[in-house]
């Protein structure tokens, strides 16, 4: 699993996750994702290149969301696949961290 980080305008941190967020994948990026969300006030978590998501991956995402929200920040998910979105919905995390299927609406949500 990979994590790429881009800084977008208006203090948005674009966190691009790539690969399988199974247990091994989550462990590979856990620390860096935690650090990145710990310093982000507006976290755009890009799931468009995530092919798989299981409970340990959800744990990583949840801990990241807690990091961001504990500092009064916002986090959104961008473009999960249909299957990954189903996992997020089944876990109930989509009601706390909104899912957006296009960049414009995601950025609007972070700036609201």
């Amino acid at each position, binding site marked *: 699993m990979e994590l790429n980080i881009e800084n977008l305008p208006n203090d948005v941190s674009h966190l691009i996750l790539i690969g399988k967020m199974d247990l091994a994948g989550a462990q590979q990026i856990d620390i860096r994702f935690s650090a990145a969300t710990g310093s982000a006030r507006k976290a755009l978590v890009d799931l468009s290149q995530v092919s798989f998501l299981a409970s340990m991956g959800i744990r990583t995402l949840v801990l990241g969301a807690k990091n961001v929200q504990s500092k009064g920040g916002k986090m959104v998910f961008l473009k999960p696949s249909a299957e990954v979105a189903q996992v997020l919905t089944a876990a*109930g995390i989509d009601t706390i961290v909104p899912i957006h299927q296009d960049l414009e609406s995601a950025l609007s949500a972070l700036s609201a």
Partner: protein
Amino acid sequence: MIETLTAQCTLDELGRVSTWVDTLASQWGLPTQTTFAIQLCCEEVFSNIVRHGHTESNVDQTDATAQVSLSRSDDSITLTLQDRGPAFNPLTVDAPAMPSTIGEMQIGGLGIHLIRKFSQDVQYHRRDGYNCLTMRFDLARNPQAASTQSPAMA
């Protein structure tokens, strides 16, 4: 048609198990949604077997292998995982409450909750010292249809 893989009960084996599932799913021409659901359930069950059934405290007392089986009928795939860990019926674990805030978010119990959501039926039984969890995935249905699990007595 049934295929079985024997794996050591360590988290390092998850990758090999996943590759085996992918290979079979490709050979059988399974839809992407079905393969995803099987992979998800397999990962959740196998990692639970390792984490809860084969810890350092009991590793000398248990057979440290698990059997993962996939079988196919005309309209469904059946995934079965068996292990000789301590008796444990994961279907007795309560589903986590749906959170309304990030502070309420629970990861414990989430695995079995996902299994119920992504399979059409889940069954547990304990026999001859084995835990056996069986999940059915209907080939023509949305894999997120709720399952109708009915846990048997251990």
